[in-house]
């Protein structure tokens, strides 16, 4: 016993180092699996408050750009209003309102990262605004990600620029579906995997959300096909998708709540049993 205590006292620095290192290693490993980064995240009042304080300064520099985005969105919505019968190419925002199944909340982005291999955004809406895990997040141009962690007034978004993100998406022209992933290289491109080789793919085709999950409605824009190559197996293609959204410059986002989500989940779990 005496020897054990002596050993601990003698090597206390090394033992503390080992302890702290393993804690951080465990947190790191946890953060590499989806929906596990529960303890250390920026959806809390300390980080949210600090980001909020400095975001109000930052906002002034982006006013001009935000205005441009807003007036562009206004123009598009007005165009749709005047041509209600003709389905314009960019009608994906419209579909969220007409279905009546989705509740839309506006939020401001406090923190956006895109240079890491697992990126998250922090926004200024949380549980108090009835934002919960697994809500979809979009901008006027296309998808951004999925709500990951929430606190009272803040929430983090698992960006589509995240190695853990897998979002159901499809070709606009046909119904061939695949999952949207990110290889960690460029913030302007994501990859659409598992598209069957039978699908007629052309460079420049539009990719939109597939609507298979209850998170995103069908038909929200993702990007256009930049290039594609056949996988080693030969059955599926992987598409390089150029995003509509400039993920490096996101100021305001819309959060989508599927009102029927609980019903869909309950139905799916009963049919699985």
């Amino acid at each position, binding site marked *: 016993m005496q020897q054990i205590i002596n050993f601990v006292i003698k090597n206390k620095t090394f033992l*503390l180092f080992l302890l702290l290192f393993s804690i951080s290693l465990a947190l790191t490993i946890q953060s590499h699996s989806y929906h596990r980064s529960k303890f250390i995240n*920026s959806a809390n009042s300390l980080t949210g408050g600090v*980001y909020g304080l400095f975001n109000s300064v930052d906002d002034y520099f982006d006013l001009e750009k935000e205005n441009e985005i807003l007036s562009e969105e206004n123009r598009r919505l007005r165009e749709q209003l005047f041509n209600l019968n003709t389905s314009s190419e960019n009608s994906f925002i419209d579909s969220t309102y007409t279905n009546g199944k989705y509740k839309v909340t506006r939020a401001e982005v406090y*923190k956006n990262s*895109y*240079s890491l*291999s697992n990126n998250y955004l922090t926004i200024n809406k949380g549980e108090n605004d009835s934002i919960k895990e697994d809500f979809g997040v979009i901008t006027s141009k296309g998808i951004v990600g999925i709500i990951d962690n929430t606190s009272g007034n803040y929430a983090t978004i698992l960006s589509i620029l995240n190695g853990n993100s897998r979002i159901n998406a499809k070709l606009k022209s046909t119904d061939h579906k695949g999952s949207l992933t990110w290889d960690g290289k460029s913030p302007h491109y994501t990859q659409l995997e598992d598209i069957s080789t039978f699908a007629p793919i052309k460079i420049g085709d539009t990719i939109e959300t597939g609507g298979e999950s209850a998170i995103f409605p069908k038909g929200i824009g993702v990007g256009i096909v930049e290039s594609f190559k056949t996988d080693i197996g030969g059955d599926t293609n992987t598409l390089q998708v150029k995003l509509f959204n400039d993920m490096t410059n996101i100021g305001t986002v819309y959060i989508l709540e599927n009102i029927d989500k609980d019903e869909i989940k309950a139905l799916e779990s009963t049919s699985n049993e």
Partner: protein
Amino acid sequence: MNNVVILNSVRFIVLLLAQVIICNNINFLGYINPYIYIIFIFLFPIKDDRLAFLLASFLLGMLVDMFSDSGGVHAAASVCLAYARPILLKTSFGMLYEHQTIKFGNTEIGSLITYITFGTLIHHFILFTLEIFNMANILLILQKTLFSSIFTIILSVLIIILFSRNKK
């Protein structure tokens, strides 16, 4: 003694805020960010308790992680750097360290740069290895380590010279 504690606490908070509000958003050429918060680890008083030093480094790394949603990568890298610091001090300052008489404000600039270069390289290599977490991307890890290190080293040396050299 109290003075030292206050100085280090202020340095801790200022560097943390500067890191998460300014440096995390630089994204030079798309992905190059400096990580200047490690200046705190470089300048921590040498004679002080090593256990407190390890804990402070861990806390700093953890807070940076919390702000940038990166799991525990900064904490792990900071703890490693803090643990490896005595070896770094010995190789870069030699005799001065043996006699425990280093004052970062008036050491030779060459030794200071060696010390910061090796420390930054160790820290950034661990940081990016854990962040990317995929040995298949070893080239990407080395590339990020190299470019971010250059950025961090230049900024760190400049900041240390600016804020401590004039107090002779």
